[in-house]
């Protein structure tokens, strides 16, 4: 049973769009709404960026507001930070999220720490960085890392990880309007998926509110981004076997909707985290650490992580599937999870 996102005010109308297109739509609407908003990235005017996310934008706006940069990633992010300090509202397409490490100082030190270091002057630093996560077949180890855990561990940034075209639009518009720097991470593997997108140009989804695309009592599967469709697929198959799992799509990693996670797991007593990022040190680790602390003695089974393997994504597209969580692994994990019996307390020592 799939639940409608609650934030969508009854939209005047919706349209079936590709995930990718929803990005361009959100940017365009926000550029119309607020003159301070501008976009920059590599090849925006010729291609709408490497991923075509902002294709057509240049037809509606001048080159003053749709800017082609060179291959200058430190400038792209650093100047976005500076431009926001100067009163503009930049949306920067850095394409592959891996390139955040090229502008690592600008992301992790400048965007995240500037206001902290300067005593809150200015109060706002409205920068949106579009950093594609997930796997784009055959683009290799330096183009396919899922890096949201790095951002979770570095206070001062917000992080959005949408899984549907509607969420893309709603979250990206919130990101652009948000007073804080937001790393908006569309999943490259979802670019061509389609879904109904509200055309209301005030449709936004607040940052920090998870959705629950499926409700159930047997266990809670916490997931986001490219893993959501796989989890929903697995959940359908489990439902056919009479196992109704609840699926939480976090939608943003910072803020993380702990209320939604804790209240669901408190009810189901069993939790699994599914994400594409490397397991060790991933977002799943934080969720497991927090659940075992807050729900100690109330969990029927240990929190299970079915996440990316502890390796890189090879260039060879044929090997990618071995690196990522699969529907089979999710199914097997969920079956084990719901059948675990809490062990009888044993004497220690």
């Amino acid at each position, binding site marked *: 049973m799939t639940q409608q996102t609650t934030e969508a005010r009854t939209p005047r109308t919706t349209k079936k769009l590709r995930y990718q297109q929803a990005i361009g739509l959100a940017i365009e609407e926000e550029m119309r709404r607020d003159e*301070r908003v501008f976009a920059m990235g590599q090849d925006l005017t010729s291609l709408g960026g490497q991923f075509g996310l902002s294709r057509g934008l240049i037809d509606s706006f001048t080159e003053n507001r749709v800017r082609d940069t060179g291959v200058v990633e*430190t400038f792209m992010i650093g*100047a976005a*930070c*500076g431009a926001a*300090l*100067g*009163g503009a509202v*930049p949306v920067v397409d850095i394409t592959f999220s891996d390139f955040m490490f090229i502008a690592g100082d600008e992301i992790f030190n400048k965007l995240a720490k500037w206001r902290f270091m300067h005593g809150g002057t200015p109060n706002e630093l409205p920068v949106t960085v579009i950093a594609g996560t997930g796997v784009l077949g055959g683009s290799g180890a330096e183009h396919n890392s899922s890096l949201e855990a790095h951002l979770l561990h570095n206070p*001062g940034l917000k992080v959005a990880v949408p899984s549907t075209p509607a969420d893309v639009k709603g979250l990206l518009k919130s990101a652009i309007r948000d007073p804080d720097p937001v790393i908006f991470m569309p999943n490259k593997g979802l670019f061509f998926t389609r879904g109904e997108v509200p055309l209301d140009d005030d449709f936004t989804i607040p940052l920090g509110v998870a959705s629950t695309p499926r409700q159930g009592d047997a266990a809670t599967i916490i997931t986001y981004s490219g893993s959501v469709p796989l989890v929903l697929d697995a959940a359908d198959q489990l439902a056919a076997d009479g196992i109704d799992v609840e699926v939480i799509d976090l939608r943003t990693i910072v803020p993380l909707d702990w209320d939604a996670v804790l209240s669901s797991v408190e009810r189901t007593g069993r939790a699994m985290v599914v994400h594409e990022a490397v397991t060790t040190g991933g977002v799943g680790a934080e969720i497991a650490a927090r659940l075992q602390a807050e729900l100690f003695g109330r969990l029927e089974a240990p929190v299970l992580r079915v996440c990316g393997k502890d390796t890189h994504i090879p260039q060879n597209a044929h090997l990618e599937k071995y690196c990522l969580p699969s529907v089979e692994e999710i199914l097997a994990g969920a079956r084990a999870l719901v059948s675990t019996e809490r062990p009888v307390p044993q004497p220690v020592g």
Partner: protein
Amino acid sequence: MTTTKPDRLDEAADQTAPALDNDQLETMMYRAALARGVEDLFARWAADNTFQGWWHPGRGQEGCAVGLMAALGPDDQIMWYHRGANWPIARGMALEPIIADLLGRTNGSTGGKGGGAPHWVDWDLGLIGSGGTLGTAHVLGGGLALAKQVLGRPGIAVAGFGDGTASRGTFHETLIQAAAWKLPLLYFCENNGWAVGTSFADSSPTATIAERAAAYGVPGERVDGQDPVAVHAAVMRARAHIDAGHGPALVEAVTYRVGGHYFGDVGNYRPDGEMDGYRDPLDVLAARLDPSVVERIRTDADAEVAAAAERALAGPIPDGDIIFDHLYAE
């Protein structure tokens, strides 16, 4: 504007220097004296541990900041860097929040977050701040200039940096993009001959920083940083280029790091005779004014420093919970 050789600095400046009137010279002298007074104060306080942290003395480099700021207008915005307090003081920022920041008091401009090597900020004066990693000023300064261009706002952005920092990749990425977009950006380099213990002369493949600007199709000029009037003239020429819409320009002010890299660095790596020919920028400026005026200015400046120091010291130490402030917008 062409690259001038160090030996031709004075002539080049004299050729085209716009006149500075007496009022302006007195303001420059006053701010230079304030900056020197703060240097003296911080040196005393560093020696007796009145504050904790890493102070990078700016003594001897006051002329660069004073000359630069005299050429800037109210719409200009500034990303400065780690050395000294010359930049905010020369821009006219109040001393109490400057000094209190160093002391880590809540009356500092960062409300108690700062201390030691502070990140002074004065929004109304366009003193936007500074980063702790070298090269910040290039990209963020470039961004300030970009915002001006995107929003159609007046003024220029200044990115301040030292000779060592000119090697950072951000210098390159920003200047190439700023030149392509003709951003209103001034690169202002204080070449004090040292990056910590590494000498510019020994480590630079070029004789000057200024000549590197040509690789970006950008004018670069070298000027005597000990002479605030010459610095002012060079910056005026650079900003004429920028204001005309031709894009960025670079000024390299040649100066001296009189003290150590940070307070406490004894600098035993420095060669003998290095300071030969050193001219104190305050003396250079004073020579253009009536001695009695200079005398009065220095007395007034010392009094202002002393009064500000007292007020700064009276400020409270912040509570521990401010560590959670300003991570996100309020």
